[in-house]
């Protein structure tokens, strides 16, 4: 039994500490996926909380047929879809505009140590975020599953219910589009 399987076993029996360790293992993947979808840190935090709460609720029925990584990615996808649906219904914001004051594009890191390099990095990151946001949704979703959840093409195909060939094609096209956008902005 792997360390992760042990953690799952403990968490399933109600061990809060084990569950918290699972959160720590996956919070970055979940949060960044949510951030790319919500484009807003507050919303990304909310989505991430929902993902882990759902994980807690569903752990008792988690049998390990799929990996925990895949299960968490699936929950993230579900929560993000719910979020978008809810947001669209409320019509309070859009995927491209955000006026909450906590936008993803804001460079809020400490840039005092090497301001020039930090600025350049922030510009690149900002560019790639905008580029990802401009991708068609299916391609963006596939890329995010690959990039942040580090899933194999087989796992992504299973989550998105598409063929591995489609996964391969989406990732390839997505990367190509990102590359072209970054090139046009002189970031490559």
């Amino acid at each position, binding site marked *: 039994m792997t360390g992760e399987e042990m953690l799952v076993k403990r968490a399933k029996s109600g061990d809060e500490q084990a569950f918290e360790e699972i959160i720590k293992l996956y919070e970055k993947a979940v949060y960044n996926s949510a951030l790319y979808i919500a484009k807003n840190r507050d919303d990304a935090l909310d989505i991430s909380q929902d993902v882990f709460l759902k994980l807690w609720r569903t752990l008792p029925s988690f049998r390990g047929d799929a990996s925990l990584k895949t299960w968490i990615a699936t929950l993230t996808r579900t929560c993000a879809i719910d979020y978008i649906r809810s947001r669209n219904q409320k019509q309070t914001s859009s995927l491209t505009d955000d006026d909450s004051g906590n936008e993803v594009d804001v460079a809020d890191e400490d840039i005092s140590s090497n301001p020039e390099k930090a600025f350049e990095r922030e510009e690149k990151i900002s560019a790639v975020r905008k580029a990802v946001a401009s991708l068609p949704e299916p391609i963006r979703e596939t890329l995010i599953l690959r990039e942040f959840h580090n899933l194999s093409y087989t796992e992504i195909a299973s989550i998105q219910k598409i063929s591995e060939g489609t996964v391969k094609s989406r990732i*390839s096209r997505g990367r190509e589009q990102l590359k072209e956008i970054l090139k046009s902005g002189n970031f*490559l």
Partner: protein
Amino acid sequence: MENRDCEKVLELLSAYIDGELSESDAEFVRAHLEICPDCKKVYDELKETENIFAASSEDAPLELSAAVMTRVRAEKAISAKRRKFTRIFGGIAVAAVISLTVLASPAILLIASGGAKAECDDMAVNFAPSASGSDNFYSDQRAETEIALDDRLYDENGKYDGFKDVIESIEESNTEQSSFILTDGKKYTANLADGTSTPISFEGDIAIFDGEKYEYKISGDVLYISNGERTISFGIIEDGKKIYFKEIGKTND
């Protein structure tokens, strides 16, 4: 020939970066990149794109795990209450979820047996925001489900023949009749109550309530219906020939 190779390599580059190629394809790409500067340039750009994408991730906020754990502990507390509730209701039979009528009259709420009602209210209180620590929990006591029991649910003396066990599954249900399998393996059928307005019906694994589809589950003496956006739980109140499903909590998932 080289152009054809370039074409093939460019198609494979992304999967090559992800380590998703067969060994022979990967070797083909690797060898080609060594001799083709044009394809190598595209490869380098894709790698750099990938690097920038990866670098765009940021650490999750510190408060994330703490916030989740707070809610987890709140849910555990609620579950403990629910188990207590179930134990208290342990001998009460559950029959049918036939029709749900939103009743304004609180009198119906009082039909329940005394002890049971107290626990039900207690349960409702514990779904309140202040107790759970979550804004997603609230209590709504207006809704009740009125259950009418088929005569077969009574023994020859006209007494409630005792659902000593809980419902195992709802076998079939429509707007007129529902069949239930209990954990003792017995099957019961319940007729609809007359004059109902908002029915719950069941089609296989799906419950339909107020025009919306829900998944449902019965655990102990609580019926849960969930559509992924909200979960509504109903506690069970029994009064002679009628059983009421009293809404005891609702969560926005």
